[in-house]
Every structure is written in structure tokens, then in C-alpha cells.
């Protein structure tokens, strides 16, 4: 039972991540590698504010969201002019920057959270408190799962409503033919800023949930591997609609768990998992480039 609750919490978190990433990759057609960066920014902001400064869950998450929104400009400003491979490279740079900041902003002599040791570097931040909501501390996973599911459902609702709105329609038009959309008077730069900011905010919430749930955070949550895992979800599940990323999150959460039942030696299992991810991606690209439930294929 606990195991299933644990899986459900992970699923909740990654549904938020995949749905938000789909806004950028599937709706705007912009392949970003920086998504894990914003996920980590959300996680670290919550961790530091809650642990060091004792903020409550809601204000800390709100601050994390605001920070992510502002920093999302590092991705959306390059998107004004860059497209395709060059945009991917720009986001790779953002991702590397976030990772190295988190990794290097440390000083063994200074206390955690001080200016010279903001992130504690590779050692990460242990002991992140579980949230307390309306006076109830969610220390029990059976309570936390309610919060996680509620937040995931709310995010799904927001994404659903936005993508079905005229705003989402402009995103798709922009993805299909940006020049034609501009010719109709659509300020595509503004739409890119909005879409990337919204996606970054949502994934920051997911990162905060993760930090609160696991209680420990290190820079690997901002690693390139993490970004690629997120991308795999939306690519395998499918781009450009609502159900695709949810299917993708489900598959990529379930897959390693299924492998676990094969009873392989640990060293082999970890590598096999990566190999299977890779194989899955290659097979998808070849046989079903729009993903399992998707509508749009990356070009």
C-alpha cells in the first residue's frame, strides 16, 4: 500500500512536469532542455525558504513560482529569435548554468543558506520539512498524497483550460507557421514569454512538491539526465494534446518499477534501465514520431 502511494506521488509530480513541458515543446514547438533547471529552482527555493527561514508551504511555493517566472526569461528571450537547433543549444546553456550554480554555490565553513553557502553544493540539502497545511502537518504519506494529487489535478485543470482557450490556439498557430501568425497581428514574442513562464512556474511547483516529499535535494535534480527524462515522457507519450504527457508520465514511472520485478542485479538494472529508455526513444522516433497519444511531431 505504501509502495502504491509512493508511486502515485511520483506520478502526480511528473504529470505536472510533463504537462507543463508539453506547453513549450508540444504547443510552441520549442524543444527545451532547461526544464529540469526550473524544476530544481522550485525545489531549492522551497527547501531553503522552509528549512532556513521557516516559511510556510504556501508562501514558499509562491516565492518559488515567482522566481521561476522571472528566470524563465532566460529561456524565452532566446526564443524570440532562435529556432530549432540553436534554441536547443541556448536552453542547454541555461540548464548547465543552473546546474553549476547549484553545484558550486557552497562553502564547507559557512552555514547552509548563508550567502556563501546557499545550496550546500554536491552534498545537497537534507531535512527539508514536510508541509503543514491548515495546521495539519503532512508527515504521513497518506496525507501527502492528497496534497500532491490535488495540486496535480489543479495543474491539469489549468493546462487543460489554457490549451483549449484562444490563447492555446494562437500557440499552435505560431508553432505551425510563425510568420503567418505574425502577419495576422499576433505578438508571438509575448506568447512565447507567457507560455514558457507558465510552464516554468508549474514545474517549479512540481519541484517544490518533490523536495517536500523526499526531504532531500541535491543538484542532480537539475541535471541534463533529468531534463532528458522529462522530454522522454512527453515524446513517448505524445506532444501537442492533453492526454499524451499523462500517458508518457505513466509509462516512464511504471517502466523502472516493472524492471524491478525482473530481479536483476542492481548494477545491471540501473544500466539496463537507461538502455531501455534509449531504445524506447529510438523506436518511438522511428515508428510513431507523434508519440503514443500525441498529435504533433517534432521536426
Amino acid at each position, binding site marked *: 500500500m505504501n509502495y502504491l502511494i509512493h508511486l502515485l506521488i511520483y506520478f502526480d509530480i511528473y504529470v505536472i512536469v510533463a504537462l507543463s513541458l508539453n506547453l513549450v515543446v508540444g504547443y510552441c514547438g520549442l524543444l527545451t532542455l532547461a526544464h529540469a533547471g526550473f524544476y530544481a529552482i522550485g525545489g531549492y527555493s522551497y527547501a531553503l525558504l522552509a528549512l532556513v527561514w521557516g516559511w510556510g508551504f504556501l508562501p514558499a511555493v509562491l516565492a518559488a513560482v515567482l522566481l521561476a517566472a522571472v528566470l524563465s526569461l532566460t529561456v524565452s528571450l532566446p526564443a524570440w529569435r532562435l529556432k530549432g537547433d540553436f534554441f536547443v543549444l541556448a536552453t542547454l546553456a541555461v540548464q548547465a548554468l543552473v546546474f553549476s550554480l547549484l553545484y558550486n554555490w557552497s562553502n564547507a565553513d559557512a552555514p547552509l543558506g548563508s550567502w556563501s553557502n546557499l545550496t550546500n553544493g554536491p552534498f545537497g540539502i537534507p531535512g527539508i520539512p514536510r508541509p503543514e497545511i491548515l495546521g495539519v502537518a503532512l508527515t504521513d504519506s497518506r496525507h501527502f498524497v492528497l496534497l500532491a494529487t490535488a495540486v496535480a489535478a489543479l495543474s491539469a485543470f489549468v493546462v487543460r483550460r489554457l490549451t483549449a482557450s*484562444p*490563447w492555446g490556439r494562437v500557440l499552435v498557430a505560431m508553432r505551425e507557421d510563425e510568420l*503567418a*501568425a505574425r502577419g495576422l*497581428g499576433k505578438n508571438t514574442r509575448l506568447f512565447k514569454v507567457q507560455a514558457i513562464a507558465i510552464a516554468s512556474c508549474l514545474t517549479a511547483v512540481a519541484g517544490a512538491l518533490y523536495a517536500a516529499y523526499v526531504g532531500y535535494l541535491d543538484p542532480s535534480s537539475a541535471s541534463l539526465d533529468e531534463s532528458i527524462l522529462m522530454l522522454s515522457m512527453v515524446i513517448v507519450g505524445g506532444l*501537442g494534446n492533453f492526454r499524451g504527457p499523462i500517458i508518457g508520465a505513466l509509462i516512464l514511472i511504471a517502466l523502472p518499477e516493472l524492471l524491478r520485478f525482473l530481479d536483476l542485479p542492481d548494477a545491471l538494472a540501473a544500466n539496463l534501465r537507461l538502455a531501455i529508455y534509449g531504445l524506447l526513444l529510438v523506436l518511438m522516433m522511428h515508428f510513431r514520431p507523434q508519440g503514443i497519444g500525441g498529435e504533433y511531431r517534432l521536426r
Partner: protein
Amino acid sequence: MKIGAFCDTLPHGRVLLRAEGLKQAFGGQIILDGLDLELREGEVVLLRGENGSGKTTLLNILTGNLEPDAGAIHYHAHSTPRSYRFPRPWWRELNPFDHFTPEFVAREGVRRTWQEPRLFGAHTLRDNIAVAAPGHPGENPVLALFAPSRSARRETELGHKADAMLARLSLARRQDSSADKISLGQTKRVAIARAVVAGARILFLDEPLAGLDRQGIGDVLELLAFLVRGQGVTLVIVEHLFNQPHLHGLVTTDWLLKDGAIRRTDRKGRGDDSTRPHSLDPSRVSIRRPAWFGLLAGEDMEVVDELLPRGAMLTRIRRPAASKHLSKPVLEIRELVVSRGPRVVIGLDDRGDRVGFNLALYEGDISVLQAPNGWGKTTLLFALAGLQAISQGLVQLRCHPITSLPAWERAKLGMQFVMSDNHSFKGLRVDENIALAGYNNASPGVRALAGRTFSSLSGGEQRKVTLAAGLNSAVRPVVNILDEPFNAFDHSASLDAVKAIKSSRAPGTLLLVPSAV
């Protein structure tokens, strides 16, 4: 064509757009040289000029797609006019509300269409039109999220408007089909409708009739007439030579772009034909012929028409002078069936039975295959070139079956192709493109372009290079197959093209064109 008699009586109103001293040069080559122009409400302008004279460049500048080197543009369509002066000082770019870009110029009531329709393929037809509406509250994510009823109200309104527009285009029951599933003529009309729903006061049209059959041309003309009469939209049209006569009833003003400046002439009434080059006058040839037909067929040649299934027609121009073996087939197509996905495109008869498509090209002939849009012209071309798999049938080149050969083997055997969308190597220079095609005695018109990269050429210039490269791609050419060879050409380029086709060493030639019937 009886459209547009009203134009003569329409008084031309106030100035909507004025440009002064526009200058534009590309790498030292001066294209626009202090150009002035004035566009008045209710005018329908035909912008003419030779290939490479700068028509597209001017269109790009006036619609905000390209910043000119110098000059000024004033947009007066709205009550508060807006002016841009060039070169713009850098600090203006810091103001996010003062840019010279397509989206800002669009707000001044200026819209454009491109040669390709550029519909949004993932959207339904209704959404393609609805998305164009300006000032939609639902396009603000905050309102979309928290005030969905406001957005929904506007959305219903727009849906009705879009449906009414689609009904006008006789697409009433197709609102929900996706934009990539309708014919070329229909997409072109939807693209125009989209621009108008977005509130265009001035609409620039880049070759709105290109690639259309007679039916499609009629439909687009009808829509344009409706825009002028019913919606008070002012039009500026760029159209290639052979389609210009179609616009006669509509056009009120000619702009001739020459040496970087515009010479303006107002047409006094309909039927003022002084601008029409005489050798290309379509009224001299039978109505079933494309306008350039007279250039290909001489007096001494026999012309034979043959009706093909599903509204297509094959016209043979037999040239006794070109060959001694007039009845020897060079290319034979027997019982060909080509499908795209599950749909059979080539090989159906009029009742929809799968009988296979037959066609033979004879030595010395220039054959013209006229087919309506959607007939499968391009599919046939690709199947012959070996770029599209065939389901059944036989293709023989000089009695050798080539059906199982890959594309490059076919080219080696002497099949030369000129595709309609200028399949060349975009990043290479013109001379490199021609060298790749194995061509070393290019015409002067093409040689003048050597050293330029292909992608920097104008539409007509690209076409010249593609034609020159295509017609000289084989060592020992046997057949030439050309898709819409005269598209985008001005008068002299058309004459050059005709000469190149007639003097090609290939004994057989097939031209594929949209029906003029």
C-alpha cells in the same frame, strides 16, 4: 468574366498608405531607389515588374517583413496614423510598443498572403479563420483562465462569423475538417478570408492565382471582387504574367516597378489592354489553351487533343521538324496506379474504378497535360521520377521498363525533371547548382546570376535556375518533364523558357499544368 464593373464607378478615397524615398540594396545591388507611392482607399493595384525588379522586396517592406535601408512609410488606415522612418535609431528598438515588424504593421490594418496559402495545418478551417481575429480576450492567459465566459462569448460570435465566411466559400460543411485536407484553390481562398476576418483594410496578395485551375481562379476572383465591393478592402496584387489578364475587370491602377521606382497608371475603364503583351494575348488562341500555348505551337505544327479521365486533357504539339520518327514512343505509361496512403490518386476512371492510367509520349512531340487541381499532377511527376512508389503498372523509357529503377538511375537514362517548387540546393551558389546538374552552357540570363546563392534569388530568378539546371541534367536526355514551367516568369523569361524547351536535345517533352479549360 463579369466581375468588377463597379470598380470604374468607385471614387477613390483618401490615402491609406504612403511611402517616400524607400531605398533598399542587397550587397551593393540597388533594388529600390528612392521609391515613392501612394495607395488610396478602394484601389485595386496590380504591381508589375520584371523578374528580380523588387516586387517581393517592396511587398515585404510595406508589410513589415523587411526594414528598408532608408525612407519613410505612413499608415493612415486607422484614425491615428502611424509613421515609420528609416533607418530607425537603435533606441527605438528598446520600446516594446514601437517596432517595425509584421505584427505591428498588421495592427495598422495591413495584411498579406503568400504564394503558398500557409494555413495552420493543425487547426480546423473554422479555427484558421477564428484565430485571426484581433483583440480576443481569450488570448490573454489570465482572462482565459479566470474569465472564461468573456472569452466564450466572443468565441461564439467569431464561430458564427467564421462559419458564414466558410459558407461564402462553399465550404459550409467543412468547418471542422483540418486545413491540410482541402484542395489548393480552397486553401487559397481560406487564407484570403483569414486575412480579411483579421480586419484587413489593405491586403497585399502575392500570386493569389498561381497554381490554380480555371475553376480555382474563378473562385478566387469572385472572393476578391466580394472583398472590394462588400468589405471595402483595398488590394495590391502581384501576379505572374499569364494570370494577369484574369484580373482585368478588377484592377483600377497599375504600378510598374522599374529601376527601383514606381510608375503609376490609372486604368480608365475595363478592357484597357495596353498593358498586355501582344504575343501573349490569350484571346488569340482557343479558349481551351493556356495563355502561353501560342508560343510553343507554331503554324506548321499539328495539334491533337485527347481527353483523359477525371477532367484532364493531353494536348500534343507534333513537330515534324524535330524528329524523323514521329510515331516512335519515347515514354510509355501503361495501367499505372499510384496511391498516397490508402487513397488511389492516379489510375481511376471517371466512375472511380481502378483501371490504370495510360499515356504515351512520342518523338518530337511537346505534350501538355492539363489537369484540374487535386487530379494528382505532382503525384504522377513524383512517380515518374521514382520519388513515389507505384502500386501497379509499367513505365517504359524507349521500350526499357524503368519501373523498378531508383530515381538516380532514371536520371542517368535520360529523364529530366523540373519540379514546380524549385528543388535546388538552397545554400549553394547558382553556378554550383548548375554544375551539379552537369550544365556548362547556361543562357545569359542565368549566367548573370552566377555567384549568387540560390536562396537570395527572387522567385522568378530561382525558377530560371531550376529550369536551366533541370533541362540539362542528363548527358543524353530522352524526355523532359516539367511541372508548371512558366510560373513566376516575366515576358522575356517566358520567351527564354519556350526557347529552352523547344531547343532541348530531348526527343520527348511533357508539360504538366493546371487546367485552363
